[in-house]
């Protein structure tokens, strides 16, 4: 049984994770403040529900994903490009299309926009490990621990994820080339 979580420590340790995750999921800079605040307010409210088993990082990721999803439903519902994604009981993304609205997309940086859209094209399982590896710079053993998976499973999934990402990138290049004169 893990020790109870300390709110301040959670904030200090995982603020970056939460912010990056929100941004990756398409939250524009201007809305990141609100979303991240909401995440931590939910965290604060639910500290008592924390089961002591889930790694705090995973718990936070679940809450973040959920909050982003709620924000999209609430504030960006009218945007036809926004498909509310599904979140399972633990708040893990199961189906995602959090593609930013065009106006947000313009504001988002090119690299982030591209990566986000390419990630959208790959399976949730693969996306999850790829994001943790490339975005959060976690090692395979760390990811394995976080997700409760075998290290070999993580490594295999990472390889597959990279291939899928590369394939998505190749498609993107092909589309871009086609569009350009």
């Amino acid at each position, binding site marked *: 049984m893990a020790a*109870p979580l300390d709110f*301040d420590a959670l904030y200090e340790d995982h603020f*970056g994770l939460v912010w990056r995750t929100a941004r990756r999921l398409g939250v524009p800079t201007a809305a990141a403040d609100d979303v991240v605040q909401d995440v931590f307010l939910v965290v*604060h409210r639910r500290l008592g529900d924390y089961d002591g088993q889930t790694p705090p990082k995973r718990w936070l990721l679940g809450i973040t994903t959920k909050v982003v999803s709620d924000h999209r439903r609430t504030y960006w519902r009218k945007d036809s490009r926004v498909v509310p994604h599904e979140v399972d009981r633990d708040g893990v993304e199961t189906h995602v299309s959090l593609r930013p609205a065009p106006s947000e997309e313009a504001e988002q940086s090119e690299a*982030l926009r591209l990566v986000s859209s390419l990630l959208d094209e790959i399976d949730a399982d693969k996306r999850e490990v790829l994001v943790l590896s490339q975005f959060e710079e976690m090692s395979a053993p760390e990811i394995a621990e976080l997700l409760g998976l075998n290290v070999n499973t993580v490594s295999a999934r990472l390889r597959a994820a990279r291939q899928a990402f590369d394939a998505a990138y190749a498609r993107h290049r092909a589309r871009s080339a086609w569009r350009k004169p």
Partner: protein
Amino acid sequence: MRDSERDDLFARARKDASPTDDDRRRVRGAIHRRLGVGAGTAVATTALKAAASTAGAGTVAAGTVATGTAGASAASVTATAVSLSAVGVVKITAVIAAIAAAAVVASTGLPHFMAEPAAKKADVVEAVRPVTTTRPVAATPAMTAAPLSAPPHVDPIPAAPAVTNPLPVAASPMRERAAPGPQPSDLPVVVDNPAPPPPRSGTEVDLMADVQAALRVGDAPRVLALVSEHERRFPESALAPEREGARVLAVCASAAPDEARTQARRFLSTYPLSPLGGRVRATCGVTDGSR
């Protein structure tokens, strides 16, 4: 796609998605305000209250106990909110030491953030006064031992957006964020808010500052005198909880233990959500009460 290309693309995306230190500070300040507002009494003069709370609340005991139990109790909410405000803790260290009883707590029961490097404290100090004064606050470790260089009344506006802004509090960070040009810490108050600020009596603030100063040096009789004066001149003040908290702390430092505990309990039941609750409990040796 080569590994290096992919890594490079992700690295750029990561950089774009990453928050700045300023983001971290600003959001922390906003969360602090929202937690404070959510937990505290919905009084329009939150700014003043926040000033007093910042200066005097956030007790060691509250920070540790409340975040530890992690319950949904209001007391916990308040205390945790305050524990975000390390500046309160920084300041209070001197106060507690001066006041007496809790000196032991201060030296033994430090929550983790008390042990953080000075940089982090400075960080928090910045966060707590995002839209306040231009007067510099000496956010050095020396603050924990030496008398404060910045009296509490110089940074009274942290919750100002919530005060004068008729919109939900949730909207204020966006407004801050969206404001071009100066950073929040440079803003005089709420420049984009047309609503007039709530009436603020400098005199009252001065008086409360004197109360804090007297508390700081452990001058209980003076605290009691000033508190009585405050009560006489500002009977309906929104700072009444702070005033009563100061009174109880002074009583606890000077009166017989039984009397002190009685007063402390009365305070805790009257103001169950006060950020001063933890401090009152620690100083007056009350373990029950509203929690």
